[in-house]
């Protein structure tokens, strides 16, 4: 496999190109700007569309239009931009339009800073716009996964006709790693049943209006059914040294990279620490987490770069069988492996 050293942000764009994404619409924001920049360099080489929109609001609506026309389409942004996109994402979900949104999280609230945080968790994983909907959320933790999971995001978005997020933080976006470039997708899904191509047989309607209350309730129930299927079929997790783990650290994105180091460090010190890393945040690996108490785990530590947004979901999954502790950093601070090890020792007396 050919390898190339590249930033996570670039890798997402390579993944999009390889997945047959035909257009990119976006507005620059640190630390996601390299997505727009690399898209502006790459897409025109393929005669595909790159357009720097006038705002994130415009960008997501362009995504809506391109998705409605059956294209695989990408946009990328960070916290404040994602907030602006939410209305459009809700429309995409309501109109069952597949599209991929990359969120390279930064510090908040407000303008916050551009350091790495994971504080968009709630606004992304909970379907942050108005109405009843969810988006598929994939959480890469390496440049390789930025490429691979972006490709997977396109596949899942099309499979379920739903927006899909690639959610990560500034560390993964800015970091360079060797990426093994996969084979390009050879066949794109057939969308002729519903997409608008400007032809006689594609006189379709892309719409999220259901005036009749019963019709809208029915549609919402259909969406719920879809999300249940996604929950059943698409959960992905990574486990590291879990076989004999007595204490489990849970984290995603760059946190999971630090946890991995912390696990190795803890093991050197004789502490049986393991890692459970959600790769999908929706669907959330609730079953996998709920089974931890039955696997002999004595302590669960959720580790995130946000104010307890992830630990809430972990505890919801645990249903009171155990309660996860929280260790978190914010403001752009990334914890170190040593810090996690010490936290584990302090909390569990090991």
């Amino acid at each position, binding site marked *: 496999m*050919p*390898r*190339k*050293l590249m930033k996570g942000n670039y890798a997402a764009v*390579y993944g999009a*190109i390889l997945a*047959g994404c*035909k*257009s990119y619409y976006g507005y620059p924001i*640190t630390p996601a700007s390299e997505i727009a920049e690399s898209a502006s360099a790459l897409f*025109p080489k*393929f*005669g*595909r*569309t790159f*357009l720097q*929109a006038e705002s994130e*609001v*415009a*960008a997501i*609506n*362009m995504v809506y*239009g*391109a998705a409605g*026309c*059956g294209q695989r389409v990408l946009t990328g942004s960070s916290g404040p931009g994602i907030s602006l996109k939410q209305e*459009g994402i809700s*429309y995409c979900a309501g109109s069952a339009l597949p599209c991929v949104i990359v969120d390279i999280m930064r510090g908040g609230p407000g303008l916050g*800073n*551009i*350091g790495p945080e994971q504080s968009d968790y709630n606004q992304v994983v909970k379907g942050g716009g108005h109405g009843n909907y969810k988006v598929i959320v994939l959480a890469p933790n390496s440049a390789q996964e930025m490429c691979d999971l972006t490709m997977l995001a396109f596949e899942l978005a099309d499979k379920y006709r739903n927006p899909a997020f690639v959610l990560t933080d500034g*560390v993964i976006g*800015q*970091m*360079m*790693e060797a990426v093994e470039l996969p*084979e*390009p997708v*050879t066949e*794109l899904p057939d969308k002729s049943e519903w997409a*608008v*191509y*400007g*032809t006689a047989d*594609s*006189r*379709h*309607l*892309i*719409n*999220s*209006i259901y005036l009749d209350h019963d019709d809208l309730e029915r549609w919402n129930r259909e969406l719920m059914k879809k999300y249940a299927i996604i929950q059943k079929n698409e959960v992905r997790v990574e486990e590291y040294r879990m076989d004999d783990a007595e204490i489990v650290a849970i984290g995603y994105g760059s946190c999971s990279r*630090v*946890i991995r*180091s912390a*696990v*190795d460090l803890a093991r050197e010190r004789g502490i049986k620490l393991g890692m459970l890393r959600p790769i999908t945040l929706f669907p959330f690996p609730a079953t996998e987490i709920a089974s931890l108490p039955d696997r002999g785990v004595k302590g669960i530590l959720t580790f995130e770069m946000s104010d307890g947004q992830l630990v809430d979901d972990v505890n919801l999954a645990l249903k009171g069988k155990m309660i996860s502790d929280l260790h978190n950093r914010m403001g752009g601070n*990334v914890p*170190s492996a*040593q810090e996690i090890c010490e936290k584990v020792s302090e909390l569990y007396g090991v």
Partner: protein
Amino acid sequence: MAHKTVLRKPKGFIDVYKHKPGAEKDRTHYCPGCGHGILHKLIAEALEDFDIVDKTIVISPVGCSVFAYYYFHTGNLQVPHGRAPAVATSVSRANPDSVVISYQGDGDLAAIGGNNILQAANRGENMVVFFVNNAIYGMTGGQMAPTTLEGQITTTTPYGRNVKTDGYPLQMCEIINQLTAPVYVTRTSLHDMPNIRKTRAAVRKGIKNAMDKKGFSFIEVLSMCPSGWKMDSVPAQEWIKENMLPRFPLSTLRDISEDTPAVERPVPVMDPDEVKNILGYGALSDSNLTKNPDAAFEKVALRVAGFGGQGIMSAGIALANVGMEYGYNVSWLPSYGPEMRGGTANCSVKIQSETIGASECTEPNMLIAMNQPSLEKFEKIIVPGGALIYNTTLIDREPTRKDVKVYAVPITGIADDLGDTRVQSMVNVGAFAAVTGMFDPSEIESLMSSLFEGKPEKVVKLNEKAVRKGYEYVKENFS
């Protein structure tokens, strides 16, 4: 246009309005005398007459025309409030051979979507925009619109629009006409028969422009909202004439479609082999260098730190690249953002055989310090037994750590002797190779052309020399 022997519901309309809920699928949802209905008919007629019903896509806004999709026998997208021009942009890009119609009210276009219309117009997107100016928010029950006239009473201007607090009625045609790209900008009205016929001509002209890919056409139509204005339809026409015309004069502000070439859009390359070709898969080789089993370091967690402009980032990237070629796992993490604005820069590089966890080197086993502040900041975090390379050209104080191996190297000086300070990053690469034993300088040389892809031969050679000099300096002074 051929003479018509019958004027009847145009084929641009759907026969039975199947998307309309309820029983009344044979009539519109519009109020009696509403201008939207008249404009719809003119559009639908043109689509039939030009035989483009099949290839037209209509964007329905939010406003009373939110349900335009009930009626047009075309592809339809209903879109968020104000965003029709943004959606129409990507629809037109995705289907460059289709005729894209963006239909908007005054609140939609001139208030919430004000920037979107300007930007689409400014890009010269290939679309025709129908802008229904009825000086009010019809759908939400008659609130003030950006086009509401001075003194006009609406449900949110119960004392009349006060220009001192509410601003002046926006003249969108005049604003759009300030832009370079649009090809056709006109304002017409539905207030009497001659003007309805002029509107018909404008509709046809705009649609023709979109068919011929002439770019952006903007047609503002002064239109009755008898319900919002709380009057009958015929007096509403009179009201346009008396009140709207003075503020919104009817004229064609621009018509340059004749002299404008057709918009051209590229055909996307989707063939997998061609995609790989363009991405340069052929030039990317698998790692073919062998790791040195006798290296002094088997894994490196390195910080490179100094001023911006000292090649800090590029030294780190070059090392990661070389490490990758040896088959190591590598990661490179820059300090990014405001930190860099302060003029200092640092990056973390990891090179190791095992999977890499954290990419930030919080406990590096090697530091390359290019200036005094960097030495002070990072010296203390090196693990005992680690290595410290420091740039004696710019640092005159000795490191304080005694439990690490110190390499005093005049990095900047070596680069300057070579005639170009910028090669200090590669001096560092050479020094790193000598300290760690992980890389062989002649093997690095074999990678130079790919590391400096696209750079002139002279630059490549100079950097090659820099690697060699850095390597030799360490070998000669610290073996």
